[in-house]
């Protein structure tokens, strides 16, 4: 039940955010501070989520096979690989390290 509450809240919130942009008259959200904050907020969230999902399990901060996966993804990014290749590199590297007992 809790999961459905979370799904409903996310679906509603995300849809309203999308709709707001299309309905609001141009210029209303155009203040530069609001714009800059909106551009920077995803940066903070994505960085935090990347770190959390790579370097933690529950409440424990640790380094395991996923770190190798993220490193592989970073290399793929630097090589300008397509999106799918980046994700595949992370998955394969993580599985590889685990198979070797990491």
């Amino acid at each position, binding site marked *: 039940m809790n999961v459905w509450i979370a799904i409903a809240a996310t*679906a509603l919130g995300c849809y309203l955010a999308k709709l707001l942009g299309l309905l609001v008259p141009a210029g209303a959200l155009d203040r530069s501070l609001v714009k800059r904050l909106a551009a920077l907020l995803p*940066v903070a969230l*994505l960085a*935090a989520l990347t770190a959390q999902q790579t370097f933690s399990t529950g409440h424990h*901060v640790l380094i395991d096979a*996923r770190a190798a996966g993220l490193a592989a993804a970073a290399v793929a990014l630097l090589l300008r690989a397509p999106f799918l290749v980046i994700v595949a590199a992370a998955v394969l590297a993580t599985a590889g390290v*685990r198979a070797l007992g990491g």
Partner: protein
Amino acid sequence: MATEQTAPPPAPPETPPGTGGKADAAVVRDALGVGVAVGLSGFAFGVTSAGSGLSLLQTCALSLLVFTGASQFALVGALAAGGNPLTAAAGAFFLGTRNAFYGLRLSQLLALPRALRPLAAHWVIDETTAVTLAQPTRRAARIGFTVTGATLYLLWNLTTLAGALGARALGDTGAWGLDAASPAVFLALLAPMLKTTTERATAALAVAVVLVLLPVLPAGVPVLGAALAAPLVLFLKGRGDNAPAPAPGPTADDITHPGRTGEPGNSPKGQAR
């Protein structure tokens, strides 16, 4: 989907051949390319979501109703970590707020009739915005938005279903390294945003904050705490900007060190750690 073409009366062709305009077929091809590539990564979402313990119905409902990848991955991750549902939804929502600003730019470009906007809104995401903004004319923008949106929506939902079903067949998704898919998706979305020192400082601060808060705060809250890095960096930058007035125009430094000028893509590595 078929409702999109409330095309204006036969206006004179907006794209004169060969003069910077873009043929419809070329727009469709670009849009399909983006739609197919990203739509397939719905498979990673389906696997991750099912691996996090969500049911098939819940996984598919997320892709059908939320339809903005980063928010979906974030929600599933927060729920898997045992977060409170509203805390988890808050993190996903904040990630989705950027779509409001995409919508602002798109509404001017697309000039959609008011009745169509609630429908089109669901497709306002990173990829449709990227394709639409790249088009030279309104007609091309409308085609790009519609084709990218339709392709992505269809594929994202089909691949989510396939991924969720596949996860069951795979059993322990961790053994296959599939728990690394989600952070890799976040990293791939983040990397192009790290253009200036402001973005890099924000990312570095957010990483530090989340790792410090993780052991001590309930699941889901550390990520929300890390979001405060954004206003904090803007505040500090605002104060910094007031102090030293930047020298306008090219400085003597640019002349004596020609190698240092104009290297926007020259990003120092490792700062996002």
